[in-house]
């Protein structure tokens, strides 16, 4: 039985979760008004630039959640770490949600600025592939009669799909695209310092939201496994 590590997890989660939730609310409380109302407009895009404060953190979280999912899947496949797999499974719907948010806000931003909500350039296409990888991971995990088989198949898909992460990151450097290059590069940050506080507050808010929800979801999985084990014990 893997009870010890899961017991440690439950205790740790109970301590971290309220703090993360409180900080998350604080970040949203300060971040949203600054981002949407009190930060300066852009010299070129005016108020439309405010979409960035949702779009960019959502895109980063889409990549981040997939990174966690791939790392969790690898440590499940190699070391059979049960909690790692639970973290991977719990990250998938959150990552899919952030990726969808990134795609939707990107369309809302593209329409007024580029003149089109969608083009099939390397950045947009690879981000859509990321969204489908999340959906495929979740569907594959549930497509087997034995949960363990499903977990393994989904974990392998997560690892194979992780090749998409560098493609998304460097798509705007390797190929010419309609999407502009990253705001963070070797040369530094291309966002004015007046716009960074709301950006980082929103990144913090999204990151803490992830921590809260992933802990909730893993806790639910640990407890479900405990209940199943207890039922089997009683039935035996």
């Amino acid at each position, binding site marked *: 039985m893997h009870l010890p590590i899961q017991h440690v997890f439950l205790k740790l989660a109970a301590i971290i979760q309220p703090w993360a939730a409180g900080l998350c609310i604080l970040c949203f409380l300060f971040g949203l008004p600054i981002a949407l109302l009190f930060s*300066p407009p852009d010299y070129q895009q*005016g108020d439309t630039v405010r979409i960035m404060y949702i779009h960019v953190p959502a895109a980063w979280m889409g990549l981040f959640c997939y990174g966690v999912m791939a790392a969790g899947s690898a440590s499940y496949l190699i070391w059979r770490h049960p909690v790692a797999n639970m973290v991977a499974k719990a990250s998938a719907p959150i990552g899919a949600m952030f990726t969808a948010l990134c795609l939707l806000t990107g369309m809302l931003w593209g329409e007024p600025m*580029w003149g089109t909500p969608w083009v099939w*350039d390397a950045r947009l296409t690879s981000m859509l592939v990321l969204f489908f990888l999340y959906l495929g991971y979740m569907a594959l995990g549930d497509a087997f009669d034995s949960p363990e088989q499903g977990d393994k198949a989904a974990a392998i898909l997560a690892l194979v799909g992780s*090749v998409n992460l560098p493609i998304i990151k460097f798509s705007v450097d390797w*190929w010419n695209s309609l999407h*502009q290059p990253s705001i963070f590069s070797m040369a530094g940050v291309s966002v004015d310092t007046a*716009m960074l506080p709301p950006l980082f507050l929103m990144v913090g808010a999204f990151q803490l939201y992830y921590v809260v929800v992933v802990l909730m979801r893993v806790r639910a999985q640990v407890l479900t496994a405990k209940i199943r084990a207890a039922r089997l014990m009683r039935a035996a």
Partner: protein
Amino acid sequence: MAKRKTQRLYFILLGGLAVATGVALVLTAFEDSIVFFYSPTEISQQTLSPGQRIRIGGLVETGSVNAEGETTTFTVTDTAETLDIVYRGILPDLFREGQGIVAEGYMLASGVFQASDVLAKHDETYMPPEVADAIKAAGEWRGDEAPQQEAMSNSATASP
């Protein structure tokens, strides 16, 4: 037990290497279809079949924009080669002299590019208008696309 774990680790590392190599080969092979647009220089080196739809991208040359009713003619440049474009329709808000744009369409027999769609590109620089003005006043205005930046300072009042 530890041996099996090490084996699984190497198996996954090798598998990852194989997948990455395969994907890298595919992406390299399909590079021509992955790029979103061609530059005027690349167009001048290619022989296009008449009516072949392509996308071209470049900076709108300063002083080249001519609007007659719904029809706009302008020149795009990659600073080495230029290409004349004719377009009928509404241009995006960010379209202006010096701006990076992508036009989709085909070459006319006259060597002019007939665009059916014009999209505006913008770079990854975001700053408040006052900061942009201050940088321009200090004469420090520069960027990757220097002509674009220069031309933009002329039309800063047109920003929304």
